[in-house]
């Protein structure tokens, strides 16, 4: 295979890559000019559909298909929400795009709004991204001045405003309906679906929610064509009619115990091991790998033996992970104790659960309490079964909660204990030699029944 040429990151090494001048010099807004002149909105949608693009925000839903769920001939307004909340631990590719090539993102947003007939795009960005916010705002300002945003874009009848909306440090605002509630000025409590946002979204109007990297892919697809996009990645499995394939380039985030952490563009389907060795220059300090998160902490864990798993939409699921998620790979070397990892994971989800569903609120809280107890040398082997019971019973997949945050909380628990049970048993026996076999309820659990 010929060496892969970066596309989404092609502009990023240039000086002032975030400015309109540099972006246009590299062919920027060529696709938009072509689309507004030669294509109808439906043709743009069809092109995106034909490309096989699947959303890059975590769920991997086919983008063009999502757009067609909007009601036909709706009197409007239709809204576009661009999800730049990017808070999944391990993930930072949206930040690269916004800081180093904001116009590539904005061009994709304009194209997506043209295709869906959205009149306003709200770009919801986390408050922890001040540089991204400034770069995006100045890029938006440049677009208004150049007639690429606002009334009658490039002299056509198409008009669009993009407004940046700043979050307030809550992970749940990345969930699409949590984002919508937050945008409306309320607590970010995800909504029960259906109705899906395409039917009733923000301000009770039809709404599309798309990720920043998805928008950047739209830019490239309209400029280079759907066929080009399909030459990259992993084709649909002909034996599985429900597999839409994993096409296109992907921005992989690599962090943790590697020599060269960073954001790397590769074709969908690169294996975790290739990513670590070819891009990350191997595990640090000459050590061996022990585990890796395949796509953000919610996705669970790969063991070292599973590092050859391809990181496409279908790959991680085949080895018991939740999915590809955000394609953020976090590598752990042989010195890591999975008790520490799981404590960190449980602490995150207990902190970020929005509290709306009892199984999620209580499950994340109690799993953290148990991990704290284990870490404090008071763990019992029975705790591992209790933890698995929580892991197996919270989430959309068992059907007990409103949103996927709790599936994300469950997967690290299930994978860590099932794939690395020895670590936990050894730790518990070593730190609690007299009590590890105890099975009676501990006092804190007894208190639960008191009210």
């Amino acid at each position: 295979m010929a060496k892969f040429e970066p596309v989404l990151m092609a502009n990023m090494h240039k000086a002032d890559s975030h400015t309109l001048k540099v972006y246009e010099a590299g062919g920027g807004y060529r696709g938009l000019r072509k689309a507004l002149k030669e294509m109808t909105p439906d043709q743009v949608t069809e092109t995106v559909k034909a490309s096989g693009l699947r959303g890059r925000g975590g769920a991997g839903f086919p983008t063009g298909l999502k757009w067609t769920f909007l009601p036909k001939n709706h009197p409007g307004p239709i809204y576009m929400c661009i999800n730049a909340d990017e808070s999944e631990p391990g993930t930072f590719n949206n930040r690269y795009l916004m800081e180093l090539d904001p116009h590539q993102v904005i061009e994709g947003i304009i194209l997506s709004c043209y295709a869906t007939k959205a009149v306003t795009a709200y770009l919801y960005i986390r408050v922890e991204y001040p540089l991204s916010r400034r770069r995006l705002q100045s890029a938006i300002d440049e677009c208004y001045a150049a007639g690429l945003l606002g009334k009658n874009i490039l002299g056509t009848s198409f008009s669009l405003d993009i407004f940046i909306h700043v979050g307030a440090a809550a992970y749940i605002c990345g969930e699409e309906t949590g984002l919508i509630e937050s945008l409306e000025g309320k607590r970010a409590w995800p909504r029960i679906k259906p109705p899906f946002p395409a039917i009733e979204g923000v301000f009770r109007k039809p709404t599309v929610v798309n990720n920043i990297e998805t928008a950047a892919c739209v830019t490239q697809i309209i400029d280079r064509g759907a066929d080009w996009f399909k030459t990259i990645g992993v084709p649909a499995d002909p034996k599985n009619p429900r597999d839409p394939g994993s096409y296109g380039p992907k921005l992989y985030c690599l962090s943790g115990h590697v020599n060269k952490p960073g954001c790397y563009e590769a074709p969908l389907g690169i294996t975790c091991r290739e990513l670590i060795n070819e891009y990350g220059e191997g595990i640090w300090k000459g050590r061996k790998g022990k585990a890796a998160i395949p796509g953000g902490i919610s996705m669970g864990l790969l063991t070292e033996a599973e590092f050859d798993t391809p990181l496409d939409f279908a790959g991680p699921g085949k080895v018991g992970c939740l999915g590809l998620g955000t394609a953020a790979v976090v590598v752990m070397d042989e010195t890591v104790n999975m008790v520490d990892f799981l404590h960190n994971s449980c602490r995150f989800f207990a902190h970020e659960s929005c509290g709306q569903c009892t199984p999620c609120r209580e499950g994340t809280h109690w799993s953290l309490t148990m991990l704290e107890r284990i870490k404090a040398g008071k763990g019992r082997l029975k705790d591992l079964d209790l933890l698995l019971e929580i892991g197996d019973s919270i989430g959309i997949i068992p059907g007990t909660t409103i949103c996927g945050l709790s599936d994300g909380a469950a997967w690290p628990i299930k994978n860590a204990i099932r794939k690395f049970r020895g670590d936990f048993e050894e730790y518990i026996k070593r730190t609690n030699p007299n009590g590890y076999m105890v099975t009676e309820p501990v006092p804190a659990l007894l208190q639960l029944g008191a009210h």
Partner: protein
Amino acid sequence: MSTVARVLTDEMIEAIKAYIPRYPSKQAVTLPALHIVNDRLRYVPLQAIVEIAEILELAPAQVQDTLSFYGYFKQDKPHGEIRAWVCRSVSCALRGADELLEHMCHKAGLKPGETSANGKLTIEFGECLGACEMAPCILEGEELVADVTHEKADALLAKYK
């Protein structure tokens, strides 16, 4: 009857009102309004909630409900001139973030969320700052500090002595 002094300045009120045309509902201006007040006062006192509610034609309870959901806005007293968010999520933790936070808190004599006596610095823990390739990292106000060693952390603290 006691009258409470107004806390929103004319400038703040104008800044808040400027957001209203962007949205089809005034309630959507809640987060922008909270940010506008917080940027200037470094907290959002209860009286500001009442005044924001008045501008946005909401019950104060609605604005308060939203504020209380987001851990970001302090309400009892202003945070320091700079908030330093020390990431504690997985990629940073693998590269020493817990020890870093502990070191900084110990050295500054503060717990996460507390402000130094001179009012210059608040140390906070943060969840993944989206900069995991720079782990462990700190968001110091609007500046990202990468690959933070204990020496770098000491230098950061010294700036706010």
